[in-house]
């Protein structure tokens, strides 16, 4: 391919990278392609999402057994040790096998078409990163079968509990857990290298950084955290493994180690990890509100830069998880201030979204409902987050159900809502089929009610003093727990219309046009589903910023030609 004559010399477009090897030599072109080693980012994206949704069901099932146990105050459904294993695995599965993979699925599907690249920068690395996920998924699931059961020390795996190894077996649940987390870290780092390189080096001509869709900005900001933080967690996990299996004393007080050191290693990454998950969802919100309100994203530049404000601040807040762990007063104050500062860049985003809705032409389709629901929940979670950041309140509610309620409002009611919004919004683009709107709205309604019922009463139980991670509790917490359990079961029911919609729409849904939502963006100039290498050798030149709703400016040179071609395919 010859360089585009219109391309300016300073353009970020590099034709050598575009010439990445064709991703799918001889791969099957039917459904079998999703079950093998395939280097096509769009195949990998769907592999990630499907696998993640499977593990959403696994994690959800574990949650419903837990909520079954918590329906009544005494420990009566399962043994307390089994409860401990269930909650540990629920958290681990939901974070490492549902949320990280599903967001990497979005990265794979969206980043190349959104920036006009044919594929990821390193397609084989991309496929290898994906295939590590089922491997550690099997490792983690296998821990249910080893003697003594799975890891039961919580997803934080704080020593000394995590290194107690009651049965003294070399292969035990905790060992497999650490192995799985380390493998997850390797996979995520491989992914992060790929996403960052792709965004920085493979943009279409004319697509400067400040013409990128916000999703790409947030993906870049999130993956930068992965690159900076994951090595720290992995180092902590290796030391924990040595303490557990080889008798070292990094964290053992009786050998001169310090259990607090592990908490620093763990939270230095694991607090920013929440931002790794929430940033792409901010990206999804920023993509969806303009489409369904028919208005440009208000304050695009500031919203884009705020992502990196969040990335920076996320790296200096981790000690707020350790306010009651013997942290000195001055350090508590420093980390309280940094934590509260995060409200500023996130506030900028929230206000920008609300202003985008203002005087728009709002269309309440399923993706918009999930995005609005997610925003509603996120504002609530932001306020409880500021409460948790203040040391005196945190000393009372830390390690109680208030925290459980807060982070489920973030992780489920915001992030997972955003994930659902994204799935519905881009479903027609990447499957070529329309989903059923009625089932989608039913899914939203059940999910929204279930989420409030599940997570709101938890805040109250926590304020009254119910500690988190308990298999039994005092009778005064029964009412809040019954409500929460009913909400959890409702969320279980809500997945039925979702799965039904996904499967039946993909198999026999109506064919999707190239741009069913009238959205602006390079991915909507491609046919649905896009061909293997997106624009192939005819990459458009971007001439204006994203979200030009109502501005009447074309996004790319020769837009009619791309639109016509996407429609005839």
């Amino acid at each position, binding site marked *: 391919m010859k360089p585009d004559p219109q391309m300016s010399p300073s353009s970020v477009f590099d034709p050598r990278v575009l010439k990445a090897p064709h991703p799918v030599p001889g791969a099957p072109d039917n459904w079998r392609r999703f079950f093998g080693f395939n280097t096509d980012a769009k195949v990998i994206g769907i592999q990630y999402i499907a696998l993640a949704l499977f593990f959403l069901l696994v994690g959800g099932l574990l949650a419903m057994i837990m909520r079954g146990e918590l329906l009544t105050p005494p420990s009566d459904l399962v043994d*307390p*040790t*089994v409860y*401990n294993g269930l909650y540990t695995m629920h958290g681990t599965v939901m974070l490492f096998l549902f949320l990280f993979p599903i967001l990497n699925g979005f990265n794979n599907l969206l980043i190349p078409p959104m920036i006009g690249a044919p594929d990821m920068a390193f397609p084989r690395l991309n496929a290898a990163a994906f295939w590590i996920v089922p491997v550690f998924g099997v490792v983690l699931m296998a821990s249910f079968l080893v003697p*003594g*059961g799975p890891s*039961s*020390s919580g997803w934080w795996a704080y020593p*000394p*509990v995590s290194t107690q190894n*009651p049965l003294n077996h070399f292969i*035990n*649940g905790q060992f497999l857990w650490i192995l799985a987390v380390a493998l997850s870290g390797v996979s995520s780092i491989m992914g992060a290298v790929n996403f960052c390189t792709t965004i920085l080096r493979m943009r279409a001509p004319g697509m400067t950084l400040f013409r990128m869709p916000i999703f790409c900005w947030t993906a870049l900001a999130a993956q930068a955290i992965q690159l900076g933080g994951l090595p720290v967690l992995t180092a902590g996990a290796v030391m924990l493994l040595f303490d557990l299996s080889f008798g070292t004393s990094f964290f053992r*007080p009786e050998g*001169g180690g310090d*259990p*607090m050191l592990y908490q620093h290693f763990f939270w230095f990454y694991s607090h920013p990890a929440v931002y790794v998950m929430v940033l792409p969802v901010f990206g999804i919100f920023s993509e969806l509100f303009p489409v369904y*309100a*028919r*208005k*440009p994203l*208000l*304050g695009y530049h*500031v919203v884009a830069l705020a992502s990196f404000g969040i990335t920076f601040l996320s790296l200096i807040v981790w000690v707020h998880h350790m306010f*009651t*762990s*013997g942290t000195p*007063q001055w350090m508590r*104050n420093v980390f309280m201030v940094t934590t*509260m*500062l995060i*409200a*500023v860049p996130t*506030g900028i985003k929230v206000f920008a979204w609300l202003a985008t809705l*203002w*005087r*728009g*032409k*709002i*269309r*309440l389709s399923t993706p918009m409902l999930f995005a609005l629901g997610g925003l*509603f929940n996120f*504002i*609530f979670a932001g*306020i*409880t987050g*500021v409460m948790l950041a*203040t040391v*005196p*309140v945190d000393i*009372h509610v*830390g*390690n109680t159900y208030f925290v459980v309620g807060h982070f489920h409002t973030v992780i489920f009611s915001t992030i997972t809502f955003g994930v659902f919004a994204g799935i519905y919004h881009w479903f027609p683009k990447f499957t070529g089929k329309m989903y059923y709107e009625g089932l989608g709205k039913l899914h939203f309604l059940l999910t929204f009610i279930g989420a409030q019922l599940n997570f709101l009463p938890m805040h109250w139980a926590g*304020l009254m*003093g119910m*500690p988190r991670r308990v298999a039994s*509790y005092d009778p005064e917490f029964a009412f809040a727990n019954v409500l929460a359990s009913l909400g959890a079961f409702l969320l279980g029911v809500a997945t039925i219309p979702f799965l039904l919609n996904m499967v039946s729409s993909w198999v026999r849904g109506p064919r999707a046009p190239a741009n069913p939502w009238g959205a602006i963006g390079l991915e909507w100039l491609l046919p649905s589903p896009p061909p293997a290498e997106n624009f192939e050798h005819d990459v458009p030149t971007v001439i204006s910023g994203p979200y030009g*709703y*109502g*501005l009447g400016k074309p996004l790319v040179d020769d837009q009619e030609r791309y639109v016509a071609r996407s429609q005839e395919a």
Partner: protein
Amino acid sequence: MTSESSMPRQLLPGLLLAGAVATNLLVSFSMARISHQWLPVQASTAAPYVDDLFALETGIGSFIFLGCIGVMVWTLLFNRADKYDMDDGDPIEGNLRLEIVWTIIPLVIVMLIAWKAIGVSQTLASLGGKVRVAGAEDAVQVAESGSGGSAPAGAIEVIARQWSWEFVYPNGVRSTELHLPVNEQVTFRLISMDVLHGFFIPAFRLKQDLIPGSVIDYSLTPTREGRYRLRDSMFSGGYFAANQTDVVVESATTFSRWLEAAAKVPLQPAANPATDLYRQRLARGDRGWATVPPAPPPLVHVSQDPLAGHEA
């Protein structure tokens, strides 16, 4: 709204906004008042400060939440596209003044809350301090040497194990139920014999982790007589949920009478829910997932009363 309204048209949006803000203020103020009811009874000098800060945050938080949701609901009511309306909305790309305002105002609000919270933290520290007195191997020695010795005068040793709480009073009395005189500052010496535990008494609004390898002195002043719950707040393994006991705050005379009477009772193994649960598990054939066996129940003069009700 009719165009015949006697009100000048440009005044109406301003009045609407003022009405909405006033309503929001009123509701948020009530939320702050109500927030006290979401918390357990106040039984320490620290509790009112924590609760007032929480109420302040509830008030500010409610105002922001309702403000944002108000805008959202407004747009959903009045900015909806008609079924066949394919037009775009107002193409506003930005508003510098607005963007500066919504950066500065949240910054000022959170910094004010942080400033207030730092003040409350200092107050809490002056009401009852927290000192890490020994680390690493020193701590293990302090823990092994048992009561007395280096403990500050009048300190109550709190010894946490998987899964029991043991309290050693300055006169050598041992119990698994914590008795405290009301309105007197008490210092605890927090020691964990095995893993992390959390010393959490919701009615006191105070929580401090016990760290194996460290000894932490920690003080507070109970202000209200009653029986409250002490809960392990840091996950400590198998029977974590059973690691709870009661705190009895009583008048100084009742407390000293209790202490005298307790000293005369012979030491005996404490009643311990975790041990009972573990025994039941063994009786059922040791089914379940792996756990370390509970530490033997401590030998105490007074055991926790499993049937007594608690207030919070």
